[in-house]
């Protein structure tokens, strides 16, 4: 069982969350020309790192907020969690 510290609600079990995938994927800006490669990288191509992985989760059976979680994909250890609109560097 994973325990995820929701920045809004506190420590909860994984059963309250749903997964939203790699949080490092950024949608290409709409106002500029988007190449096929940029679009492929956004829609399909993933790094799928072994080790520290920044990912989105939604606290769907709680506050329903999207959050960011930094987790190790090999050990499942969670290093930190923060609000979805907070940048990784903070």
């Amino acid at each position, binding site marked *: *069982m994973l325990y995820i510290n929701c920045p809004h609600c506190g420590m909860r079990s*994984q059963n309250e969350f749903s997964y939203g995938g*790699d949080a490092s994927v950024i949608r290409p800006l709409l106002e500029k020309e988007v190449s096929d490669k940029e679009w492929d990288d956004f829609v*399909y*191509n993933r*790094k799928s790192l072994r080790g520290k992985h920044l990912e989105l989760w939604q606290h769907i059976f709680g506050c329903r907020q999207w959050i960011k979680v930094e987790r190790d994909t090999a050990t499942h250890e969670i290093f930190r969690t923060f609000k979805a609109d907070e940048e990784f560097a903070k």
Partner: protein
Amino acid sequence: MQKYSVFNLIKNALSNHENWDLAWKDPTPKKEYDVVIIGGGGHGLATAYYLAKEHNITNVAIIEKGWIGGGNVGRNTTIIRSNYMHDDNALFSEFGMDLWRKMSQDLNYNVMFSPRGIINLAHSDAQMNVYARRGNSMRLNGIDAVLLNREQVKEIIPMADFSENVRFPIFGGLMQPSAGTARHDAVAWGYARQADSMGVDIIQNCEVVGFDVSGGKIKGVRTSRGDIKAKKIGLCVAGSTNILAEKLNMRLPIETHLLQACVSEPVKPVLDRVVTFGAGHFYISQSDKGEMVMGGDLDGYNSYAQRGNLPTLQHVLTEGIAMMPFLSKLKMLRTWGGIMDMSMDGSPIIDKTHIEGLYLNCGWCYGGFKATPASGWTFAHTIAQDRVHELNAGYSLDRFNTGHLLDEKGLGTKTWIS
């Protein structure tokens, strides 16, 4: 190599079975090979076997980080089927069914292929319509499919829950009678033994740490047991694909996820088919030892841990008990997990890459085991001829760019949704 036969069994019995040949050798890696296959799982071993058998390329090495058959070929639920709707998937899998039927004789190794049939249960009128459509598509591609009504299903699997007031009543099902199961370890060992006998070097405990690429061509591979030169290299590493792709500066439409399976304590024969639950993701069969072999959903988040988490197991078994209530009385014997190379449309990739001499075999999602022979056969063809065979033409890497997706399940790119 000694043939496995009744005659040799009796002969070796006279010397207390102490003089059998080793099934495969433990060679030191040579400096150079024509082809190096990375990954000693089912697909890698099958690829080496068909390179030797079909294309007469025997200066081949298989490099395996752990031990052969220790990954997904030893961790699956052994289901073999070709009940696909899309042409590319159906024709590829049905080609594989032919190889499965001949495999024990071909490899001189009993892989215990048991064509016991698979039944996908339907729980609504709409689902019956979908199954009728899929069954018709299958039959158009020469695959056997039978649409069963509720009474027919009840006759075949009376232990399923046919009571009236259940959440997911059984309306019927789609059966592929020629589908079945096989002894998964024997598949790996059978391919390994034959490949070895034809001159393939099976190199275990040898981790790939890097690649030599120059001028857009592959030159060799750097391993924990030294550098190995190779004209051609095939990647066959399932859940570890992204780790090697990163060393090649490639980004692939693959995410690595964890899939669990489990077996119950052995019981007397009760289920002689493979059955899948239609209102969720659960599949079950009974092994020859009597264990109920069960599997279902991914754990649902990127993972390289070859072990699972209990919430998913509980969820999957809840579906199992809804389908066959007697399962609640059984004790769990073992659970385990494997790491899946989940592609972004649910279909695999067997293709060349932008690097000359580098070939890619990945994206098997839930269906890697049954594809073992067809994957090895087509990958060997792709490597040997430097072009894809028509059977794997649809499994191209650039389909994600051109839009020719093979979305058999129509799930989109969220591979963790099941």
